[in-house]
């Protein structure tokens, strides 16, 4: 198994980077003045996987991508991208990966066709290759018949798919996606992930940053970055199971805010936070007992929340994440 474990003594840090992996990173560090944006991270991404790189805004996700794409240098560490040392020879891999950012990076004042033509030219596609890829992108992005429309006039979902098309026009082996679904509605997000699965099934490695926790479940591998350090990693279900040994209960109640305040101070509750319109509470392992839902319901009813309904839930990745961040902050 690859991925990262927090402070594992036999972890990746002591092994040399793996040239067979799509991405192999050891001790990668980036400082801006006295601020360490990325602090000695290690991870491996096997080829053909969807790797989810998660973390709150400003945690170092984009900085990491910039180092891995060769647009920014590193202050320490090693990074092999498709087997090449990207920190020393960034130009060697530029033809082999694609990149799509949260801004979709299309030229809004160029037409669909002109955008495609530009990126095809940048990657030195032959006329035949371009003709073939153009057809593919137009079908994939559902833009047939709109080739001469200005990109600015497309709605977000179409623009996003066109951006994916331009980022993959040269059929890269590896694709970086930096918050690719920002500002896109849930239906378009679903469609977009179908396209990503399609790419992965054809052997393309995907490195995706996101802060949508539901999207994280779509990945084969996850790594959580917080304040520049990796605090957890692994397959989504392993993370859920291994990192939350405590029980999580979901509380539905009329007065959510007061219930949250009460739960935060209640004995046996490690943590309480809003999850949508409900409250999630992480119970201390010894306090949960045989019937955690019953115990919490009784306690809430006794405290005056007569309408409280409590169920034990499988921790979501969001629970995991909130929990991890809380642990980091507590240290």
């Amino acid at each position: 198994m690859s991925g990262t474990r927090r402070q594992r003594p036999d972890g990746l840090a002591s092994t040399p980077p793996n040239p067979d992996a799509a991405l192999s990173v050891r001790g990668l560090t980036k400082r801006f003045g006295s601020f360490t944006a990325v602090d000695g991270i290690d991870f491996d991404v096997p080829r053909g996987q969807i790797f989810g790189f998660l973390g709150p805004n400003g945690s170092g996700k984009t900085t990491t991508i910039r180092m891995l794409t060769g647009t920014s240098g590193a202050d320490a560490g090693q990074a092999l991208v498709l087997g090449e040392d990207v920190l020393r020879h960034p130009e060697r891999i530029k033809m082999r990966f694609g990149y799509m950012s949260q801004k979709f990076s299309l030229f809004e004042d160029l037409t669909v066709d002109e955008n495609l033509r530009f990126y095809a030219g940048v990657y030195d596609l032959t006329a035949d290759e371009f003709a073939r890829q153009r057809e593919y992108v137009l079908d994939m992005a559902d833009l047939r018949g709109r080739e001469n429309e200005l990109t600015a006039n497309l709605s977000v979902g179409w623009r996003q798919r066109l951006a994916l098309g331009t980022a993959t026009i040269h059929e890269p082996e590896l694709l970086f996606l930096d918050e690719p679904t920002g500002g896109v509605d849930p239906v378009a997000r679903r469609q977009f992930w179908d396209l990503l699965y399609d790419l992965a099934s054809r052997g393309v490695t995907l490195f995706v940053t996101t802060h949508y926790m539901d999207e994280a479940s779509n990945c084969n591998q996850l790594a959580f970055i917080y304040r520049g350090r990796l605090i957890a990693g692994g397959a989504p279900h392993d993370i859920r199971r291994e990192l939350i040994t405590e029980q999580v209960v979901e509380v539905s109640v009329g007065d959510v805010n007061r219930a949250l305040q009460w739960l935060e101070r209640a004995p046996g509750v490690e943590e309480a936070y809003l999850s949508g319109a409900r409250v999630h509470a992480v119970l201390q392992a010894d306090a949960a007992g045989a019937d955690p839902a019953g115990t919490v319901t009784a306690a809430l009813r006794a405290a005056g929340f007569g309408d409280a309904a409590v169920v034990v839930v499988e921790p979501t990745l969001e629970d995991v994440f909130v929990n991890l961040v809380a642990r980091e902050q507590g240290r």
Partner: protein
Amino acid sequence: MSLHRIRLLMWKEFLQLRRDPLLIRLLFLMPILQLILFGYVVAADVKNLPTAVVDLDRTSTSRALDASFGASDYFVVTQRPAETELQRLMDTGQISIAIVIPEGTQAALDRGETAPIGVIVDGSDSQVASVGSGYASQIIARFNADRMAAQGVSVAAPGIDARVRVMFNPTLASVNTMIPGLVAAIVMISIMAVMGQAVVKERERGTLEQMFVTPIKPVEYLIGKVTPYAIAAVVQLLVVALVGIFWFGVPFAGQISVVVVGLVLFMLTSIGLGLLISLVSHTRQQAQQLMMLLLLPSFVLSGFIFPIDSMPAAIQPLSWFIPLTWAIQILRGAFIKGSGFEALSTQFWVLALFAVVIFGAAIVATRRRLTE
């Protein structure tokens, strides 16, 4: 470096330029507007000055002098008041200039002495004051020369005192100094302002970020970005120069090579300034404000609009730090005086220094920024 990718970037830039109404307006309307403004409005400002002649001498000489003022385009003799009336006429703006011919002028000249003539100018408009008094001095000088020629005396003989001598631009036609200045100003606006805007726009939209994860190299990007605007600037300045020479009759006395070298150095400086502005601005509005902050003092302090010599002594050294000052001196020198590299060597060295320092700093800073 790939020529193919540079061509591609230029193609993209031209397409974008064509679709940006703001930039198109800046590129095409501005030179036309400036030609009209500076060619007609500014150039026409010292014609038909309302003039008063106070003839206290009342002799044939004084009447002839009076007539020579009336015969010129620059002055219209509207009043012949008493001397005591002058203050009021000047105060109320009925006249801009007054010529006072003192009693005994002809007698003094006949005795072979120097005869002073009073020229009183409304100084509230410095343009009128300096140009108007210049014209007046010239008319007096010509009158003097004619008078002596008629009498067959040598030029060295005393006559009416007119010490001002205007060289190279004897009519002081503003358009002759404006057009060469305009050529330099257009380079600055087109390249610095417009290209700077284009770079900021690209960063604002995130396409800049995208560009550098592709095989495009920073140097290819820079060449692809700068070339279209340099071409646009060359087209603009050719139009301005040709309209200036053929329509407004601006003389071109110099060597083309002097103009070309001067413009190339100034273009490099402008490219550098544009890039530096784009590096520190996050939005187009910010860039625009910074441009104004640079353009305004450049236009005011470079001698483009106001002569440097008429600025307060304490301000004058500021103009040395403005690249436009030196570019304008080179262009005016080449156009009007026909000066060569030797005569303009100081200006060329200073401009070359600006080009090396500013362009160099911009390239280094841009490269660092792009690879940071």
